[in-house]
């Protein structure tokens, strides 16, 4: 936060005001009643994706293509919703949820399958698929899913105006939509899985001692498929909830980098479900605070991105303090 302040000074803004705007205004400021629901709206996808990623990261499986899985989830979910339009029925939304989860899952299964079958590096493949998904999104919003009544503008029908498909606030004006519920369930599920279930144990052992894990009978193939699939599924869900709720429609620039920010959230939360919940809230806070700071103080949007990046750096650097004991004054052995 101190270095963040320096950053704001370097940009010619009052550091105290900037930090106050980012961290205080959204929660307790004059217009907080408007911003607080936003906190849930922005935090939910981050937490959902980060929970999925943390399972893989714990086991040393690096899925960094959550952004792509998020897009595919949104496309699949919206696709199902749009296919039913304008038919109103109770089962449309659950079907969309299932389709969204499937979309993210299948997209994550590509790097997972290639890894177990051919030993391909999942980092590179999952990332390449983000770019493929972005192009796919562009093609969909300009082509197949374009709103026939949209006067030629790119983008699909607005799902907010389609009763059965709209992921509305459960309590009016609270920002509490189904994605938030799903995020909370995911946190609990991940917590139970990691602390109580055998599979969670397998994940932790694999991350800390891969050889020991193999001796203790962990099947690495199944583990990769599970972790990648799970993170894809959750990312797909996040995308689906976003497209049917806050975003409302498929557009070219629908994705805003949640998939990448979620990586920071996962690490910031120490790969622990509860930690991720808190970190997701913090990150959502910097997003919203950043937006306010942008309009009130003219702080550039990219500054927030840099600030988030710095948070991650400090965290990684400070990890040493928890993993190793520092001994000052010993002879230089490097």
């Amino acid at each position, binding site marked *: 936060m101190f270095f963040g302040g320096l950053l704001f000074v370097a940009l010619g803004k009052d550091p105290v005001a900037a930090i106050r705007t980012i961290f205080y205004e959204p929660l307790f400021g004059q217009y907080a009643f408007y911003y607080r629901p936003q906190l849930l709206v922005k935090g939910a996808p981050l937490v959902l994706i980060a929970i999925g990623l943390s399972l893989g990261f714990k086991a040393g499986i690096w899925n960094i293509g959550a952004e792509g899985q998020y897009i595919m989830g949104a496309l699949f979910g919206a696709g199902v919703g749009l296919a039913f339009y304008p038919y109103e029925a109770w089962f449309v939304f659950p079907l969309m949820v299932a389709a969204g989860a499937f979309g993210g899952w299948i997209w994550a299964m590509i790097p997972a399958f290639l890894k177990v079958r*051919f030993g391909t590096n999942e980092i590179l493949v999952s990332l390449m698929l983000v770019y493929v998904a972005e192009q796919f999104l562009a093609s969909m919003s300009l082509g197949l899913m374009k709103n026939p009544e949209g006067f030629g503008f790119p983008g699909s029908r607005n799902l907010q105006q389609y009763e059965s498909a709209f992921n509305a606030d459960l309590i009016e004006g609270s920002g509490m939509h189904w994605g938030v519920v799903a995020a909370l369930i995911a946190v609990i599920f991940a917590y139970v899985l990691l602390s109580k279930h055998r599979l969670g144990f397998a994940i932790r052992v694999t991350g800390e001692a891969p050889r020991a894990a193999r001796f203790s009978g962990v099947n690495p193939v199944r583990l990769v498929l599970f972790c990648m699939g799970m993170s894809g599924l959750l990312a797909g869900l996040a995308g689906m909830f976003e497209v049917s709720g806050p975003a409302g429609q498929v557009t070219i620039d629908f994705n805003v980098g949640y998939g990448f920010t979620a990586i920071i959230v996962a690490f910031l939360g120490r790969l622990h479900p509860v930690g991720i919940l808190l970190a997701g809230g913090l990150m959502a806070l910097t997003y919203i605070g950043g937006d306010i700071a942008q309009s009130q103080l003219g702080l550039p949007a990219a500054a927030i991105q840099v600030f988030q990046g710095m948070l991650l750096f400090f965290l*990684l650097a400070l990890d040493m303090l928890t993993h190793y004991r520092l001994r000052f004054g010993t002879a230089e052995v490097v």
Partner: protein
Amino acid sequence: MDLSVINPVLFVAGFLVAATPLIFAAIGELIAEKSGVLNLGVEGMMITGAICGFAVAVETGSPLIGFAAAAGGGAALSLLFAFLTQVTLANQVASGLALTLFGLGLSALLGQNYVGIKPPRLGDIDFGPLADIPVLGPVLFTHDIILYLGIALVAATWAVLKFTRAGLVLRAVGESHDAAHALGFKVKRIRTLAIMFGGACAGVGGAYISLIRVPQWTEGMTAGVGWIALALVVFASWKPWRLLLGAYLFGGITQLQLNLQGAGVAIPVEYLAMSPYLITILVLVILSRDKSAAPASLGRIFHASS
């Protein structure tokens, strides 16, 4: 669809240009990986180099100073990675990802005043009569100095790794840092230097995109080139010449895809734009079976006490 629109001479000349950022970024990463460091921050260092080079070139009016600044910017950012992985012993994968995220943000911040400006042009080298040779002339002798520097860099890297003591030390550190340490080599210092070299190269590669290939500044303009460069190092199984070949292959695909877009092929633009990424995946699949060429200590954390 009219494929005759594509001029083969311009096409080849174009893909040499398209391949150059890849050559720089990949050769830098190759050196870093040879020393046993997996730096996933190539994309971040490239984009930082791209904006540093762009900004300085615009301010000074000299593209060459811009390239120098790009190298400096990339190296400075990589120093951060070196600090995290070598001093605080952080996980290299996580640190590399952090570097990319940070680099993307930083470049967007630095570049917000440079959107839509045309940078000064770096002139092509004058080869005199050589450029007038039909076909070969425009293909080989109408480029800027950085492109030739890239090829020279590949040759130099190959020679240094194969024939010099410095190259031997670098490889020793990458293959077994414990053994290298026992022999009295400064593992951390060597790795830090290798990381900085990688950062400088990535920076120059990024600046090549923003100053010569595009030439313009837009946010996130490297669009995955850094990641393709990482894939390229695997593709080349850590051999410089094969890396050059791979870079030309990818450059060719990118250029072909752009030309097909221009020629109005009946495939939607978006699907053509996917192709370089899909082909990267395909190549990774084909080549991933042979991991024997990778430096043995790649990605492992070194501390003198362990």
